[in-house]
């Protein structure tokens, strides 16, 4: 290595920092935000486990991060993480998944985790496309987009993932774009400590596949600048009309509810009750 100065976050990596993502891919920015948040948390990295789905964003922790990492089937990360958390309730478990992973094939596990309020930190990298498999439409791709599988333009309306998370009962819900990397770091740090299911959605650039759709192919900078322009904080958004919000990305921390029972703690309670009943 030419550069003798090591990155502050290098200690969290399994070896050299060497992402095979495309140039300018937002996944790396998200990876950094996650690791800074972990750095901020003061909790030993060994206490963290990562569960990731299949898709480019699955590669954020796998195999890179130097702690327990479980890289599972497409769409099922949350379900694996649920079992893991239930069996190892003292671990901090972070799930990373793409928008397709989370809301296409994995949509069911997603809403149920929200409902169960199990203490997982879900990082959903929403690049509004299937990156890994070559730019097909995702449930988050805007209406009328021309993707590999919608050559005539998409005819389906996209999900608002944070909105669904809220409706399904998630107790911590936030959204940022990669342009708000600093806020993202803070939010993830909060999400990690939140006692329940936290959903952090990140609108993130895929300059290759979604760049193509936007006719900004390979132009990560243009995409970031676009986020800068279109992002609007939820407090400000509340003051605006629906029409004024067209094409805007509402960002911020939407929900933070702290008095909802968390699943692993509830189960602990059941165990104690059952034990008492047995002993009686």
């Amino acid at each position, binding site marked *: 290595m030419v550069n003798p100065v090591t990155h502050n976050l290098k200690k969290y990596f399994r070896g050299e920092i060497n992402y095979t993502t495309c140039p300018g891919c937002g996944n790396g920015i998200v990876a950094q935000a996650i690791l800074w948040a972990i750095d901020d948390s003061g909790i030993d990295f060994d206490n963290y486990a990562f569960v990731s789905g299949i898709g480019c964003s699955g590669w954020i922790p796998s*195999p890179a991060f130097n702690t327990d990492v479980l890289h599972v089937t497409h769409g099922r990360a949350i379900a694996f993480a649920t*079992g893991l958390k239930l069996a190892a309730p003292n671990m901090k478990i972070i799930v990373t998944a793409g928008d397709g992973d989370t809301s296409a094939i994995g949509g069911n596990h997603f809403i149920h985790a929200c409902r169960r309020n199990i203490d997982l930190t879900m990082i959903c990298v929403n690049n509004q496309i299937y990156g890994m498999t070559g730019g097909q439409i995702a449930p988050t791709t805007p209406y009328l987009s021309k993707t590999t599988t919608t050559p005539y333009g998409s005819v389906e309306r996209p999900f608002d993932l944070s909105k669904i998370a809220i409706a399904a009962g998630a107790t911590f819900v936030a959204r940022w774009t990669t342009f708000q990397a600093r806020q993202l770091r803070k939010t993830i740090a909060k999400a990690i400590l939140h006692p329940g299911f936290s959903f952090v959605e990140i609108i993130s650039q895929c300059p290759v596949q979604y760049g193509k759709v936007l006719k900004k192919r390979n132009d990560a900078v243009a995409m970031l600048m676009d986020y800068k322009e279109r992002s609007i904080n939820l407090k400000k958004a509340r003051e605006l009309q629906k029409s004024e919000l067209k094409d805007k990305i509402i960002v911020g921390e939407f929900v933070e509810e702290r008095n909802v029972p968390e699943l692993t703690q509830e189960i602990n309670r059941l165990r104690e*009750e059952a034990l008492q009943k047995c002993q009686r």
Partner: protein
Amino acid sequence: MEKNKKIRNADFLQGNIACAEGAIMAGCNFFAGYPITPASEIAHHLSKRMFEVGGTFIQTEDEIAAIANVLGASWGGAKAMTATSGPGISLMLENIGLGVVTETPCVIVNVQRGSPSTGSPSIHMQGDMLQSKFGSQGDYQIIALAPSSSQEMFDLTIEAFNLSEQFRTPVFILSDSLIGHMRERVELPNKEELALFERRRLKSYQGINQKIFLDEKVALMPVFGNGLKANVTGSTHKEDGFRNVSDPKILDNEIKVLSNKILKHKKEIIRIEEVNLEDADVAIFSYGLSSRAVLKSIEVARKERIKVGSFRPITIWPFPDEEIKKLSNRVKTIIVCENNLGQLLPFVKAAACENCQVIFLPPKTLGTLYHTMEIIEKIKEVV
């Protein structure tokens, strides 16, 4: 008056309950499942018992989540199990494959029902024998046991946990609706008497290239939460868990080692029950509940001095082909009796037909036990 339930060392138990109690006896402390006839009683029972033994029960949103929860829990250190029927297994298959390649111990109970498709939930059938071995994509080995009584539902569930830990792999129990719902006397051992196979855990972090997978002698498992930095993926990987999806040699190695991990230990895994085979000219190959009709028939036939015996694989997978080959050298005919259209028949044939005749006794009515008379007639036809 006090209930006598807990003071006895025998009980009168439904197969499904015997299975659930067997799991608890084996140290199972995690159950995830989704209700389905005729397996639901296992979940019902464990939804109470799990918490009593300090474990966890969760009813998941579907069967895909059930198996995913089980595998996740196993990496979290739990002895984990799920139970379902054919439709649920179909949904689990993708992740069962992941369980195999990530070498994740767990037990999967299939209380088979009348199928295909939604079929007839309460009808006894042995329709999923091959699904358990070939249902997930790709070439892999699995261990599968076929109980034939409540006692075996209990015993083999313990055995399944032991095998799953010993070989770090998912293990199937292939039961069916009749066994699952049948009640029988079950002798309950003391836990102290049992030789339980506990998880062979990696003790300390061995560096980035630690060998945590793909050892024919079974690698130690780097259970999560112990600073072992486990690197686990369902993609093609090397001994250290690092993915490599472009070099066929890595794929080749993964498949072959995983396969050998089971096949080279067949002797330790495979259990056969042989009855009256010493002098037999005719052997009847059957398993699960069907074998009890076979044994009954043999009892009758033996009274008529017909030299017939029973060969019952308790282990269905890995398939006992060597044992069958040996058998084929001793008998003139093997009659295969299954409650399906002959799922294991080609495998018996492939193993035996160089040496002896193999014939199939198709069930008169699929979904019901053979009548002993049907079997006896066939035996007489053959001898």
